[in-house]
């Protein structure tokens, strides 16, 4: 009898982790232009677009998660992981399939966020979670504190913001606004018409074209600003720095603007002009290279 009891206890102990990681498999209706919000403290959120007018939620809930609340209707759906205060073991892994054209809003603390196959507008806010998108939504807004942001294909309008998180964008297009405090910014490729990059101490790196009629602004306090542009670029450049160096491959040398400071400025037209490139830094260096 004692042996059976021991076996029973051992069985329950072995089964506990499976029970602790409760499985989720829920389905709700959602209009193709509906809105879905997802809130998950820790773990991960993966949103995958599909052609169904439904939302499917699968995954596992953390051991100490209280509940997964799903509320709303086919126009607006809310998915929220309920957690107690001051608890550990809250990591919840969610995979949410939604109509690709729907609006998606995601909020996490440390949970990583992955967006795939979405064409509708996306809005993500997280503290330390890494945010990664691999499709081209119609609009994209991501805000983090320390989490990195990796965008494989930017939207026609993209707003990215972080405090210390690094921002990486490939195939940017349309309008792109990036703002960080200390996080580095790297943007490559694409077809941008308007771009604004602002940082305090992070480095900014842009390697891509300058669209005809485009407007590009780069601003840093102490971070380095590096541009790698086509050799045949056509743009009007206005570059200034208070105490940084200007290193320019595609135009004239900078000149000092004041006999009282080391401030340098450089204004010139490359090619036939037609686009505006404004670069401003306090102590950060500015490098303009031709590809």
């Amino acid at each position: 009898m004692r042996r059976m009891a021991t076996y029973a206890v051992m069985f329950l102990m072995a089964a506990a982790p499976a029970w602790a990681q409760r499985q989720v498999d829920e389905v709700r209706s959602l209009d193709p232009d509906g809105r879905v919000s997802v809130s998950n403290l820790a773990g991960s959120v993966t949103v995958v677009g599909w052609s169904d007018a439904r939302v499917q939620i699968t995954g596992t809930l953390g051991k100490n998660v209280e509940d997964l609340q799903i509320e709303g209707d086919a126009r607006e759906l809310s998915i929220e992981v309920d957690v107690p205060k001051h608890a550990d073991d809250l990591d919840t892994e969610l995979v949410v399939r939604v109509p690709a054209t729907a609006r998606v809003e995601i909020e996490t603390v440390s949970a990583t966020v992955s967006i795939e196959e979405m064409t509708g507008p996306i809005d993500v806010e997280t503290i330390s979670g890494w945010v990664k998108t691999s499709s081209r939504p119609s609009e994209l807004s991501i805000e983090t504190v320390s989490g990195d942001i990796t965008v494989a294909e930017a939207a026609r309008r993209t707003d990215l913001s972080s405090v210390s998180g690094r921002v990486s964008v490939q195939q940017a297009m349309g309008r792109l606004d990036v703002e960080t405090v200390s996080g580095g910014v790297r943007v490559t490729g694409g077809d941008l018409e308007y771009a604004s990059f602002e940082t305090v101490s992070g480095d900014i790196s842009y390697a891509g074209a300058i669209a005809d009629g485009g407007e590009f602004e780069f601003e840093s306090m102490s971070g380095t600003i590096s541009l790698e542009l086509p050799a045949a670029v056509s743009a009007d450049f206005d570059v200034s720095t208070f105490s940084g160096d200007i290193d320019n491959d595609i135009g004239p040398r900078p000149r000092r603007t004041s006999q009282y400071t080391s401030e340098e400025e450089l204004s010139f037209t490359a090619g036939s002009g037609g686009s505006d490139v404004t670069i401003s830094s306090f102590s950060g260096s500015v490098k303009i290279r031709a590809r």
Partner: protein
Amino acid sequence: MTCDELRRRLDDYLDGALQAEERTDIEAHLADCAACRAELDELEGLVRRLGDLPEAIEPPRDLWPDISSRLAPPVVVAGRFGSSARRWMAVAASVAAALAALLVAYSTGLQHGSEEAVTAREATPLAVPAGLEDTGFAEAEAEFSAARDRLLATLAERRDSMSPETLRVVDDNLRVIDEAIERISSALVDDPLNPRLANQLASAYRRQIELLQRASRLPAET
């Protein structure tokens, strides 16, 4: 030397950019011409007032929208003054207008949507530069100062809810901007008619305000 010739050289005279012979001619004319002495006095007063501007403006601490776009377009000025009194006056007016616009725009930003907007009653007034009493400078500056104090207080209250890493990033970068404001302000004292410096200063103010407000709004991490 005629009065017109002297007035064309007054800015260079004030800048100390003239040869000794030219200075002697000017001083001889000034000794005998009350009208030109009055003109010289007026220009010297304006230079002093403009020189006071950067020191009189405290760094703003709240958001104001697109301030750079409201500033006068950059004008490169060689040395302390331009080549003529008329140009010098135009540039002086441009810088004063830019700095006043900076504060007026900031004030407008507060009135239209800033969560940190505070009334002028709560402000700790700073000195208003002579000659800018009628530009809205004082009113804007009062709101500006109050909002700065409010944001700093908000940030102080929120420090316990921020992670050490985030606090360090915020503090480090506030120092970067503080240093920039200090150095640019100092440069403006030496070179008050350089609009690029005014733009740099406005930009540094804006970055500091944005950072403070952003830090005050960060979600709790602890």
